[in-house]
């Protein structure tokens, strides 16, 4: 029983290996890119629109509202990154219904790559919003002694993002695999449904946590309000 899709080798040449993770990730990229390209070929503003465009609009406005609720006041700047995270992880989990498919997020390399993207994106958006000096000064808040702890927390939450997603996806796939050898009729289907639920929740959690980290990094400190001038009556 394989632990991750890394162990399914499709093609090998020397040290170049085409394993299950890479092939399924390419498949997902193809489906997402080609699907959205086909749907957005003829966009219509107005009451008459195709149901696929309606579906995409529901998804995009839903993600936008969630980003706004987290505290980012301009969701359009961040929806490219956060929306892609959510859609990739959600589609990776949903496609488990296809037989022979293993979610690529069940491999620590994929989840580590996604967590590294978040690790790079947080300072990127923070510096874009606040400038380099202000962003670096935020590491020394509230006191200078907190500097090493802030750095350590930055690293550990990236690691936690990767391991959380990997553990949830791998455990779902593994439980289905084990149950298939024990009770191969109804019970694996129930566990697959549970796996779908946890997959969607984990996709939501990953993107919301990324949004919260970005919101914490881009919090512009409001300047002190000038003392109100009281006019003697």
């Amino acid at each position, binding site marked *: *029983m394989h*632990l991750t899709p890394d162990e399914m080798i499709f093609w090998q040449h020397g040290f170049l290996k085409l394993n299950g993770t890479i092939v399924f990730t390419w498949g997902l990229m193809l489906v997402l890119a080609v699907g959205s390209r086909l749907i957005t070929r003829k966009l219509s503003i107005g009451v008459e629109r195709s149901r696929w465009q309606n579906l995409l609009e529901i998804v995009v406005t839903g993600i936008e509202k*969630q980003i706004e*609720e987290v505290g980012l006041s301009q969701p359009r700047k961040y929806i490219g990154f956060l929306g892609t995270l959510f859609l990739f992880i959600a589609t990776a989990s949903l496609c488990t219904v296809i037989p022979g498919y293993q979610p690529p997020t069940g491999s620590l390399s994929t989840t580590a790559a996604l967590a590294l993207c978040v690790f790079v994106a947080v300072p990127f958006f923070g510096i874009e919003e606040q400038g380099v000096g202000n962003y670096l000064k935020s590491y020394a808040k509230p006191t200078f002694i907190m500097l090493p702890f802030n750095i350590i927390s930055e690293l550990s939450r990236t690691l*936690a993002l990767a*391991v*959380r997603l*990997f*553990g*949830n996806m*791998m*455990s779902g796939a*593994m439980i289905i695999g084990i149950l298939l050898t024990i009770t191969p009729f109804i019970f694996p289907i129930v566990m697959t449904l549970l796996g779908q639920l946890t997959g969607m*929740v*984990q996709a*939501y*959690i990953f993107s*919301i*946590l990324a949004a*919260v980290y970005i919101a914490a990094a881009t919090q512009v400190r409001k300047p002190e309000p000038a003392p109100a001038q009281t006019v003697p009556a």
Partner: protein
Amino acid sequence: MDSMTIIAVASIVIAGITISLGAIGPALAEGRAVATALTSLAQQPDASATITRTLFVGLAMIESIAIYCFVVSMILIFANPFWNHVIAQTAGK
């Protein structure tokens, strides 16, 4: 007992203990979190979107601890480096 048996016994026993002890704390914590969330939902139903979202984020963070224990347990059973090393040694002999 030679070293192979010791490694096997230690891995199996510790894998079982890891996941069983590691699931107690997060389960209790998640129960408390959901109970408090239900109480606050009953007191302020119109804040239900914020409460639900915060509840899910909190549950995911608590769940991560159980996931760490599960990953260690799986590594001990399926990707155990000490066991692989010992097997490679006995296969080489």
